[in-house]
């Protein structure tokens, strides 16, 4: 098993969440049609209509939020995919660097600087993301 998360798995979870959103919206539409088909009239019917609209409105609100969560997860998956791509690329560079050190030691130093720079950038992306997330949490709590 890979220690790195598979972005395809994350996208699959996002798709399942989106499917729940669609099902919730369908549920709301079916209830709206069923209520409309009764043709009830009168004071009590108006009060019931209001409650029914609250129920279907809340279902639609929940469906929209599920879609928002699914989109957030897809963006997260895209970022993961990009980071993994960088890590793999970094790993390939290091392997190439080791080979070159054996065959062309004089040219290794500039390449090593480039690879180190890539590594710093990848670490920086991860650390920066962590600091940003921590800062956001502190702000939300009120520090």
């Amino acid at each position, binding site marked *: 098993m890979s220690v790195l998360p598979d972005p395809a*798995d994350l996208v699959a979870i996002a798709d399942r969440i989106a499917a729940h959103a669609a099902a919730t919206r369908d549920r709301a539409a079916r209830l709206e049609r069923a209520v409309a088909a009764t043709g009830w009239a009168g004071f009590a019917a108006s009060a019931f209509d209001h409650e029914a609209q609250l129920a279907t409105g809340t279902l639609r*609100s929940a469906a929209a*939020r599920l879609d928002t*969560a699914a989109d957030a997860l897809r963006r*997260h998956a895209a970022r993961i995919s990009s980071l993994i791509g960088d890590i793999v690329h970094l790993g390939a560079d290091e392997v190439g660097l080791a080979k070159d050190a054996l065959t062309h030691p004089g040219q290794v130093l500039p390449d090593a600087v480039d690879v180190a720079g890539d590594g710093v950038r990848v670490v920086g992306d991860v650390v920066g993301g962590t600091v940003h997330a921590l800062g956001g949490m502190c702000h939300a709590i009120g520090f």
Partner: protein
Amino acid sequence: MRGGSGGIAADCAEMVALAGRFGDAATETLWSAARVGAYQFDPCLGLSALLDPAGYAEFEADLLLALGWWRGLAHAGAICGALDGELHAAAALYEGADQLDTMARDVVLGGLLAAPALAKAVVVLARSRNPVEAAEAIVATDPQLADVLITELGLPNLLEGTAHWYRDGSGVAVPIGVNTTGPSGLAPRHLTDVIADLAQRSDDDRHGMIDVRILSMPDGTRRAIVDISGTKSWDPLPTSDITSLTTNGRALVGERTAYEEGVLAAMHRAGVRSNDDVMLVGHSEGGMIAVNTARDAVAGGEFNVTHVITAGAPIGLIASALPASVQVLALENRTDVVPHLDGRANPDEQNITTASTSHGDGTIVDDHSIDDAYLPVAADVQASDNRSIRDFLTSADGFFRARSVETRTFQITRRY
């Protein structure tokens, strides 16, 4: 108008059905919330948090909002569940109130109009010196009084306890022949045509006359309409006259009768098949026979009775015994006392529609007559845009589209 697809029972059934939909929505929504919540524990997500904690935190925040207790799935599920409970409770209250209303209505209405009815009777008596005419004035003004008085006198209970004592003998169907005259010779196109043929049969001087009409449909299938005439004999003693009081007493409380036996025999002799759709139509006593025959024919699988039409028949004690598959249209003239002789309003059921209008000249005989009262009542009902009536007529539409008809007349008699 009472009962049918637009009646109280139908409203309650609709409420319960809608309650079920909200209940299902509650269950499905809460189940969705549980399934979506479980995704948070997927190992892949946990690992991804290490690489993109900001993105992970954003997703988690959005997911909690979607699942949560304000405008989220859990909130939606709770509201749907509450509506399920409210609708069930409302249906139960509605049904209970209607039952109370039925019992109270007869007493209240009977009481309200009792004084005017009695006052009118005094005026009529003073003018005509005829007590029968005065009595007619009472029942014409306040038919509900008959319901109350009959119940107070315990007449239905008395009949129920003693009906099986009456010697009823066996019903015999004597074929008279094929009838091509008047309405009998024409395939019915409307409710009024059906009542017109019933009137033709009832106007026959002979007692116990019925028609069995085989309708041939354009698609090759067949249907049958059976017209059953009412009381012609007031003899309380054993008699070969099938329409006597013995039949009335037994039929009123749902006992099988020789008349019913004779009707079924006539249907067999006329060639009605067990898979033909059948409509039974009856006036007065004939209406009670129609209801009881439908009940027993369907229960025994003997005939496929799908519709019953009664005119001026007291079926309040017996109509509920019909299966829901049999659609009933009960025509009542408001000033006709006969439908009140069972002391009970017709039940408010989805398959039982009671339609009332006012016709006749205020006398007991005329207000109960098919020609003078129930043909006009049928015309009013046919022209009505009431939902229950339209649904009944739509369900019976197949009986009004026959290509041809063969009407066989029978006389039902009794032997001991």
